[in-house]
């Protein structure tokens, strides 16, 4: 019951937050100079002021900003994100076409970085000054410091061109026929390199934090108790220490969701991954305001959902958080 209550409460907050995000996004986009009509005019090779005013009136762009904002929020609440002038299609349709690809990339990179980061952190904490621990640190920092597009291109050269293990671009092999299973396999095959690239940035963060957190926990009284019970070292570390060391790492992972999404934009470009990132890039260049707003809205939604998940995972790990509600 307490759990349900918390869930409802958190979802309530999330909705309020989303509305705030809508207002903010809309304001910022309107602060930027130029609109879609300028782009259309440029594409046509120039237009007179009269024609441009006419097009603006057609799209409602001549209304005061506050009115535009009101009608925008009203439409979004009915799941209508508007119409893309550039693609000539409803924004919702555009986004839903690409959202699954981005979600797949973001979540798999996040999970990959978490699992590997935590394992490396646990491993490094066993012998904090040993050569292997330093190697982990070095490797992790390298992943963090290298620009993501550079890592991506390097991986492409290494594992697609020199050793052709993985495909160069795209999300699935269009020549593959058949049911769900072969299709999924093909997607997974395409996913490996983008996921590694995007995850590599975050492995450093997670493994460093996990190492520090583990070191602290390993020195605690209850770990001594666990040893005094006669438990095997593996149980002491993986059962008694790790669960206590996780909360800071999970919290950080939650905060990093936004960074993962911005990283995804670059990775999608490098690997021609058909996700929101590519769409974002083209619509920004085209001043396609409704699409940009739609993408921002969904990015915010993903971040909020990610944080909600983080909260729930934390509650699962730590009973003391549960008590607080």
């Amino acid at each position, binding site marked *: 019951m307490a759990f349900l209550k918390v869930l409802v409460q958190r979802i309530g907050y999330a909705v309020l937050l989303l509305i705030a995000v809508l207002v903010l996004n809309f304001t910022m986009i309107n602060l930027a100079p130029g609109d879609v009509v300028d782009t259309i005019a440029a594409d046509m090779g120039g237009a007179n002021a009269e024609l441009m005013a006419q097009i603006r009136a057609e799209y409602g762009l001549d209304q005061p900003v506050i009115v535009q904002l009101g009608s925008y929020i009203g439409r979004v609440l009915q799941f209508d994100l508007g119409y893309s002038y550039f693609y000539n299609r409803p924004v919702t349709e555009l986004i839903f076409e690409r959202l699954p690809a981005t979600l797949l990339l973001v979540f798999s990179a996040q999970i990959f970085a978490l699992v590997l980061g935590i394992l490396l952190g646990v491993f490094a904490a066993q012998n904090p000054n040993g050569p292997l621990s330093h190697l982990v640190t070095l490797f992790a920092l390298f992943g963090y410091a290298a620009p993501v597009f550079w890592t991506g291109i390097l991986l492409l050269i290494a594992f697609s061109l020199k050793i052709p293990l993985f495909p160069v671009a795209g999300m699935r092999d269009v020549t593959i026929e058949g049911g769900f299973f072969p299709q999924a396999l093909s997607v997974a095959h395409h996913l490996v390199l983008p996921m590694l690239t995007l995850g590599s940035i975050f492995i450093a963060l997670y493994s460093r934090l996990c190492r520090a957190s583990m070191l602290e926990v390993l020195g605690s*009284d209850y770990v001594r108790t*666990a040893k005094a019970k006669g438990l095997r*070292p593996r149980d002491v570390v993986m059962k008694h220490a790790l669960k206590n060391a996780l909360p800071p790492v999970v919290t950080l992972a939650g905060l990093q969701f936004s960074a993962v999404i911005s990283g995804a934009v670059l990775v999608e470009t490098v690997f021609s991954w058909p996700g929101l990132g590519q769409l974002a890039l083209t619509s920004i260049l085209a001043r396609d305001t409704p699409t940009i707003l739609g993408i921002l809205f969904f990015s915010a939604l993903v971040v909020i959902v990610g944080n909600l998940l983080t909260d729930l995972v934390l509650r699962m790990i730590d009973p003391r958080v549960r008590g607080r509600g």
Partner: protein
Amino acid sequence: MTDPLLSVENLRIELAARSGMVPVVDDLSLYLNAGETLSIVGESGSGKSMTALAVMGLLPSIGQIAQGRILFEGGDMTQMDDETLRTIRGNQISMIFQEPMTSLNPVYTVGEQIAEVLRLHKGLGHQEAWARAVSLLDDVRIPDAKRRARAYPHEMSGGQRQRVMIAMALACRPKILIADEPTTALDVTVQAEIFALMRELSRETNTATILITHDMGVVAEMADRVVVMYRGEKVEDGAAEAVIRHPQHPYTQTLIASVPHLTIEAPPEQEPEPVAKSDVLLSVRDLTVQFPVKKRFGKREMFTAVNGISFDIERGKTLAIVGESGSGKTTAALAVARLVDAQAGQVTLDGTDMLGLDGEALRLARSKVQVIFQDPYSSLNPRLRAGDIVREPLDNLGAFPASEREDRVADLFDKVGLQRDQMRLFPHQFSGGQRQRISIARALSTNPSLIICDEAVSALDVVIQAQILDLLQELQRDLDLTYLFISHDLGVVQQVCDEVAVMYMGDIVEFGDRQSVFSAPKQRYTRDLLAAVPSIERANNTQRERQTTASQ
């Protein structure tokens, strides 16, 4: 005579330090027979806990056994591999630790933590182990054990957590139980319950116990034999009663002499007339402190920590507030010092209405009340030099002309028995007792009219404790200081106070001068509190009684 269950022979333990390996235990030999209770006594740093950890094979990674043998049932534990040691640890020899608040894993239920031991050593299945864990919790008197087994450590009190630790340690019916200061962090009444429980369970299961403590009163009540350690070496051992009555080594004599024991006072000849106090320095009326606590469904409720208490302190006297943790004694004192906000009441210090002050007036008024806190390790800023710590209140409150401050600080160092050249050192370069002297110097710096000692000696070893108490009393005589002395230790309180207020759940349940409260307590709670204090005299009496009944 049969071989002892455990014998430690010529044990030498070394710790890695910057200067190389430093011995913390040297040439220690001791033995433990089946079913008996051996007490290892000594101050912090004497090597008693290291000895226990060495027996468990749990020395910190910077420590090692450099020499000697630890024989358990004839096998040398220092030569065993980890695999064999693990079958002994928690099974044949188990241990309970000093800090019940942190020794249990916060993310598993207490039932699981006990059941885990049984699954590991006894090969029980999940259900059997759980059922057994519940019955163990029942054995250690956790009420409603079946339901409480599903509780997490943070949902239990300190005393209950230590009971869980005992249940966990006794789960596999070990031959030896090592208890390292198991009650130091607990209230006296809880301590008495825990000891009674340990005595009863170890008798039932014929478990031999090694009890590590710094408290001679505890030794007198619990131990058959005692080993006294000082700076890593054994200085004396023998039957507990003999050692306590006729200590041979000077250190043992100091140790016994410094125990702040309760002396039996003659009751006052007649009820003291309630005389009107002439020179009241601090007057507290109907002081109430409440804290908001979040309850279910977001309703805010108030928890009343201090429930409308009133008392007066005369200039130059000491009032002690005693009580167990959660009684509100510290909160009351901090409210007087305006470190915690009071919801209602009046506090008048030397004619000033303390609760009415705010902003700059309050800041300046702080020069009149200073606090000496419990933990000298965490209450001093580690980045400031000792001299600056003492000087800061002077600069901050402008108590003395700037030109005199340097001399003032040096003077204070003299007063509290520190060297002037120590002013340049940092807190970590001092011992616990010396740090508390720094705290005292800091508290004295602004010439306050009231000094609040919040468990000021509780964290110190008995010998150091006695020195600090002497210092406080000397300063009181010389400087005509007034103390509000907060403590849970009745022995200490009896030594320093003129009047006592006993607090229980936010109320003052008994108030009076020292003599009448200690010799003729009126309230049942006060009597319980006094009875729970481990005392050498009382233990001797009961032992003598036991012997007389046995010989009859």
